[in-house]
């Protein structure tokens, strides 16, 4: 069988597409299949998906805001493009930035939501008791493994030294 697109090379890749309950069969040679898959990737890649989640429900003004990691220089737009974070600090610092900006939304225990949340905000989670409870439950489940506990203990030591505001808040509550 020859390729449906170029009609020259033998078809080695067989695709079945279902659009509106209509089934289309496509027989492609390797070269045309590669081009087709590139087209599809351009249409919808993992990075779009992740960035799309981070953009969800976000006010237009904030969307244009170009967050930049002070450690590695990765911007929010870079993240949208490549779907990868630049360094460990990207997540930590975006948390810090988000704490200033406000406007939270609930994030379940999955990493896409984690990025959404950290890229945006956790401020109200600290102000609003019901959200605080939610985030505590999430943390509890996330920190059940023994190494997380051990590492948290390590960080706990540092935390006591600098009297973090969160600890002060807990005392108030």
């Amino acid at each position: 069988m020859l390729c449906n697109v170029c009609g020259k090379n033998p078809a080695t890749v067989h695709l079945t597409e279902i659009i509106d309950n209509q089934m289309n069969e496509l027989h492609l040679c390797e070269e045309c299949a590669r081009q087709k898959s590139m087209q599809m990737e351009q249409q919808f890649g993992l990075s779009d998906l992740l960035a799309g989640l981070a953009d969800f429900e976000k006010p237009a003004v904030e969307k244009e805001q170009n967050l930049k990691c002070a450690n590695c220089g990765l911007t929010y737009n870079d993240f949208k493009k490549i779907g990868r974070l630049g360094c460990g600090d990207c997540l930590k610092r975006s948390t810090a930035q988000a704490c200033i900006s406000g406007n939270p939304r609930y994030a379940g225990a999955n990493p896409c939501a984690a990025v959404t949340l950290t890229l945006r905000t956790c401020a109200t989670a600290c102000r609003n008791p019901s959200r605080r409870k939610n985030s505590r439950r999430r943390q509890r489940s996330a920190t059940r493994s023994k190494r997380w506990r051990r590492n948290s203990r390590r960080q706990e030591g540092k935390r006591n030294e600098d009297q973090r505001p969160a600890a002060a808040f807990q005392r108030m509550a």
Partner: protein
Amino acid sequence: MKINDLLQHSSEWLKGSGPHSDIVISSRIRLARNLDILPFPHWANKKQSEDSLRAIEQAITRVDMLKDTTLFKLADLDSIDKQFLVERHLMSYEHAQKADSKAVLVDSTEVISIMVNEEDHVRMQVMQSGLNLFEAWRLVNRLDDSLAKELPFAFVADWGYLTACPTNTGTAMRGSVMLHLPALVMTRQINRVLAAIAKLSFTTRGLYGEGTQATGNFFQISNQVSLGHNEEEIIENINALIRQMIEQEAQARQALLSKGRAMLEDRISRSFGILKSAHIISSEETTELLSMLRLGCDLDIIKDITQPAINELFILTQPAHLQKIEGKRLSTQERDVKRAEIIRDRLKDKLIGG
């Protein structure tokens, strides 16, 4: 240890032992770790990549568990060497694409391997034969603990281990199980099973991981969720799913035996016949036919051949392995001839009934 030394013996995970080894080929646990402060490999410049490679290299020499290992820098390897390591499942296909400041660490039994500067700074894996995820976890956990003493891994209490791809953040653990499911494919039930797996947040891949198609009835199942559960819970979830799949496959095998024994024996014997007598054979055809041979071995239809021998043939007939055995580059046609020669040689005294 040199790369060629690996050819002298079969990988530990191919020995065909461990629980459910008739259906489960191997179990693998992979942990991703990154160094704090330094940019992730895809975002790092040349100097930063070299720094991370050097830091990891030095740390490895101080870890007792890694005494019997060799670090191969990808810049020192040619394309056949790299493909050879991919075929042995010691590193990923993506890792082999660019050589800059990348390395792979391999232990002599090929149970442990560590990729340096792949998508994350450190990706360590442990492979076991059969359904043995907990044993793999026990080992990789010990390895992780000893490496964590030497290297500052990026970690935040709320999110766990930080990774380049946000979907790995959390435990940064992936457990994969390689399954051989010929009966589910032959009874056309496989699509139903795979659709159910996708709904449960597990991924199905082919023999060589990400981006590969399932061939020769081999499927690799792994977890997608990395955050929100601890490692043991994730492994227990994978185990529960795999046990169900094993049961389904076993039922399908019994159904084939009771309803279509003659058809099954015919297919297996014909596959055996082709493998024993072909003089030119492609790698796709080899995988298909060896899959049938393996099924015949599991169902006691073929008694003369052991499972490890078939497992080994799967690996030896891969393109880079053929070229390593021959000691020079071979064209596709030359490989097909060499492949048939090796298979004929290994199967020459074997009989169907045993």
